[in-house]
């Protein structure tokens, strides 16, 4: 059987699980959870250095960017210009071309502003970025992002941080069937089974933060997600059985005494 590789642009990732590094109690817990998740890429954010607290620990002291791929995001940006500014700074900082674009449109739902998202994607692609784009689960807009040169398209399962799981399997399936770039479900995953479902639908990967960071035992949950993603992928590749309306006995009736 052909080896099942997960490739975004020119990067081959060992795990189909990408994890976020926000919402943890401290950096030690972040690092432990990332390790347990088996993820080879993590999302990170760009913020001002705290100039008053010089002894504050740094994320980079706990997660070595030489060992794990950093995927800078634009969390908190509400228009194309803010997100471009953030990602250009991220590139200057680490030299990374692969980035996650998320342009938010509404504070309450954190739903993406797709008009600004399309605008920013176009500019970033032109500037040589490899862009993974957080987007709504609209099949036409997902395709448009692909046309604009997105390296991966990342539709939401449900609102960011809500843990509501996959709300629109039909849309996700249409997006997956039409796509020529990786489709990664981003946002809204609440439990490990949600990740399995996403993978069974045929997603190329999932991006999870809150569901792991907000679990009572985040490190254990991280491992659970690792297994869930592998399991879902295997289930997808194996090809599931057809559903029947009535029962079909598992034991042959021939030879019954």
């Amino acid at each position, binding site marked *: 059987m052909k080896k099942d590789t997960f490739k975004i642009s020119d990067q081959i990732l060992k795990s189909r699980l990408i994890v*976020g*590094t*926000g*919402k*943890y109690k401290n*950096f030690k817990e*972040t690092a432990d959870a990332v390790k347990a998740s088996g993820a080879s890429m993590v*999302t*990170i*954010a*760009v*913020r*001002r*250095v705290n*100039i008053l607290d*010089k002894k504050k620990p*740094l*994320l*980079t002291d706990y997660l070595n960017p030489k060992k794990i791929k*950093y995927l*800078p*995001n634009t*969390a908190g940006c509400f228009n194309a210009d803010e997100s471009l*500014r953030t990602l*250009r*700074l*991220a590139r*200057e*900082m*680490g030299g990374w071309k692969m980035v996650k674009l998320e342009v938010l449109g509404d504070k309450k739902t954190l739903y993406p502003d797709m008009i600004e998202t399309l605008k920013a994607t176009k500019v970033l692609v032109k500037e040589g970025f490899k862009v993974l784009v957080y987007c709504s689960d609209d099949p036409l807009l997902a395709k448009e992002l692909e046309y604009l040169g997105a390296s991966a398209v990342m539709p939401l399962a449900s609102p*960011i*941080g809500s843990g509501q799981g996959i709300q629109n399997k039909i849309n996700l399936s249409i997006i997956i069937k039409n796509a020529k770039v990786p489709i990664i479900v981003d946002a809204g995953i609440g439990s490990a089974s949600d990740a399995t479902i996403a993978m069974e639908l045929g997603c190329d990967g999932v*991006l999870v*933060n*809150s569901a792991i960071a907000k679990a009572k035992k985040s490190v254990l949950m991280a491992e659970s997600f690792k297994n869930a993603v592998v399991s879902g992928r295997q289930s997808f590749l194996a090809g599931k059985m057809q559903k029947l309306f009535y029962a079909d006995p598992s034991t042959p009736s021939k030879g019954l005494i």
Partner: protein
Amino acid sequence: MSKIQLNGRKIELSNKHSIVTLLKKYKIDGKKIAVELNGKIINRNKYKLIYLKNKDKIEIVHFIGGG
């Protein structure tokens, strides 16, 4: 003396400061940050060549946890 804005805070610099000496003053590792001066990203190699002037707005950013 020059008055500049650093990460949104107004500060006064009594001596002449380049970006390098400003980073040193605040004990910031120049390798782990990016600098934007008056809206323009400054290449790391130029930190020692650029001196801060009155009314400059400088932003120093780094990576933190995020989803």
